Each structure stands twice: as C-alpha cells, then as structure tokens.
C-alpha cells in the first residue's frame, strides 16, 4: 500500500466518521434550527468524504470506489482520529468535539490548499469554505454555552475535560501524513485558547494523549458499533440502488 493511499484515507475517514456521528442528531436535536444546521454540517463532511475517498480509491487502483472504502472495510482498516469516533453524548459534548475537530481541520485544509498535488489542493480549497463556516458556528456555540448558564457551563467543561486527551493525536505525525501535522499545533492552540478564554472554560492541564486511530492500531470500542449501524444496509443488500 502506498503512503498516499493511507494519507488520503486519514482525510476521508475523519470526515466520514464525524459526518456519520453528526448525522445521528438528525430529527432529535434540541431545536429545529440546530437540527438543520447539524444535518448541513454532516452533509458537508459526507461530501468531502466522497472526494477524499474517491481520490484514495483512484490512487489505490484496485477496482474499489469511495462507497466500497466507506462500507466494506472493518474497524482496523479505518484511519480516522479517535476524536471523531467518540459518541455524541449531549449536545454540548457534540459541539465541543466539533469545535476541536474544526479548529484542527481548518489548519490542515489551509495548509493542503497549497499542495503540489492538484487534486489534493482542489479538494482542500473546496472544503475550506465549508469548514470556515463549521468553525465559526462551533466556536460561537462553545462560547455561548461555556459563558451561558451554570448548567451549560458545567456541561461544556465536562465535555472539554473528557475530549482533551484526544487532541494530542491530531498532531502526532508520521510518514503517512500529507504534511507534518505537528507544525499546525501553535495556530490550533492560539485559536482554542482564544475561544476557551471567552467561553470562561478552564484549559485542561493534562497532556495525556490517546493514540491509535490514525494508524489503525487501536480504535476505541465506539467505532465498531457505529460501523454496524452505518454499514448494515449496503452489506445486507449489496446490490441495492437508490
């Protein structure tokens, strides 16, 4: 397997898994407006997935397409960050996860936009417009809920504390990354510190990092359950058309 195939899986699996997670809110979000906004965000990410996994399939050149990569791989073949497979829990937790991912994703796409690989640069440029909006929206929501009521503040702090150990993996870099992702950390920290301080949330003190998502070495127990729901239909009815 070429490095580029792995690198593209990392991009496409992040948006696929988080896109599916966010879509789980469809119809059950706390208010109608948020329901629609979350569904839009999920659809943006699924659209980005089609581009990344489509390119990955092309690079792999073994007759698979984006659908085959999304629906016919098992847990150990996924290369997404552990952060994005974490369950939704409450709305605050979902928005904190979105904010932390968006803040990383924005830096990543901004860097990839100047890639020498034309298709990668084009996907990054298209995605960046969507992700700029995602980041704006998730930042505003983290601020509104963090600096909101006593209950919303407590829930956002709990979400931040719970998710923080998954931040480190976003900046662990190896030969399978499209760029040196560790270089994105200072800009990420600046953005996150900014939003957290306006949110009146306390920055977690720990640097402990869960790892194993982007290498596929050790996903959390949540991914398999999610894939079972996500992949059931195309696996049970492989020839279904819709």
């Amino acid at each position, binding site marked *: 397997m070429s490095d580029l195939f792995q690198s593209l899986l990392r991009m496409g699996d992040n948006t696929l898994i988080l896109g599916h997670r966010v879509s789980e809110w469809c119809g059950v979000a706390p208010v109608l*407006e948020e329901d629609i906004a979350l569904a839009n965000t999920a659809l943006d990410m699924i659209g980005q997935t089609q581009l990344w996994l489509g390119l990955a399939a092309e690079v792999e050149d073994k007759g698979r397409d984006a659908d085959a990569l999304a629906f016919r791989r098992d847990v150990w073949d996924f290369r997404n960050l552990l952060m994005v497979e974490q369950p939704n829990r409450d709305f605050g937790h979902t928005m904190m996860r979105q904010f932390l991912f968006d803040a990383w994703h924005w830096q990543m796409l901004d860097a990839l936009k100047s890639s020498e690989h034309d298709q990668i640069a084009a996907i990054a440029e298209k995605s960046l417009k969507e992700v700029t909006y995602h980041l704006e929206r998730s930042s505003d929501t983290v601020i509104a809920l963090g600096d909101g009521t006593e209950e919303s503040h407590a829930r956002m702090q709990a979400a931040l504390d719970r998710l923080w150990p998954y931040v480190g993996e976003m900046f662990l870099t190896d030969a399978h990354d499209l760029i040196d992702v560790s270089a994105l950390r200072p800009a990420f920290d600046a953005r996150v510190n900014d939003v957290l301080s306006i949110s009146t949330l306390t920055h977690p003190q720990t640097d402990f990092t869960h790892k194993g998502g982007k290498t596929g070495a050790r996903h959390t127990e949540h991914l398999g359950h999610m894939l079972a729901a996500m992949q059931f239909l195309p696996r049970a009815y492989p020839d279904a058309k819709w």
Partner: protein
Amino acid sequence: MSKQEWPLWEIFIRGAHGLSHRHVGSLHAPDAKMAIKNARDVYTRRKEGVSIWAVEASAIAASSPEDKGSLYDPADDKVYRHPTFFDIPDEVGAM
C-alpha cells in the same frame, strides 16, 4: 422547570444582486448573529440567496386585520390611480 424560548426572528433573503430582500419565513435564535447563521442553514441551503436580513419579530409594527375596511377598501373605485391611461410606445418594452 419552565422552558425559555429564544426570540422569534423574521428572515428576509435577497435572491440575486439588484433584487429586493423578500420575506421567506421566521426562526428562533438567541441573538442577531445566530439568527443570521440559522437563516443561512434553514433558508439558503439550495443557493436561494446572496444576502440575509434578520429582524426581531417584536420590532415589526403591523397593521391590524380589523382595519382592513378603512385601510384598503377606499382604493377599490379609484382606477385612475393606475397609470393605465397612457399610451406606451412599443420600443419602451416591459415596464
């Protein structure tokens, strides 16, 4: 526990440059900034617009339906207010 609702906002979208903003519907949002964001997600998903206005519904003064007799009926028999008595040269085109 009583549920606090966000205020209601009336949303106006301009479909293209040069057109006026048109009322498209309403939504709830905690503040003006979020009203614009929610409007973007609720009303412009299919490329409906190039500009959004959000107005808090409580800020709109509206005429009362009971007054419709005195407000609108007097215009019924005043056809001369329509500029239909002028001959418009064909070359002017649609007006």
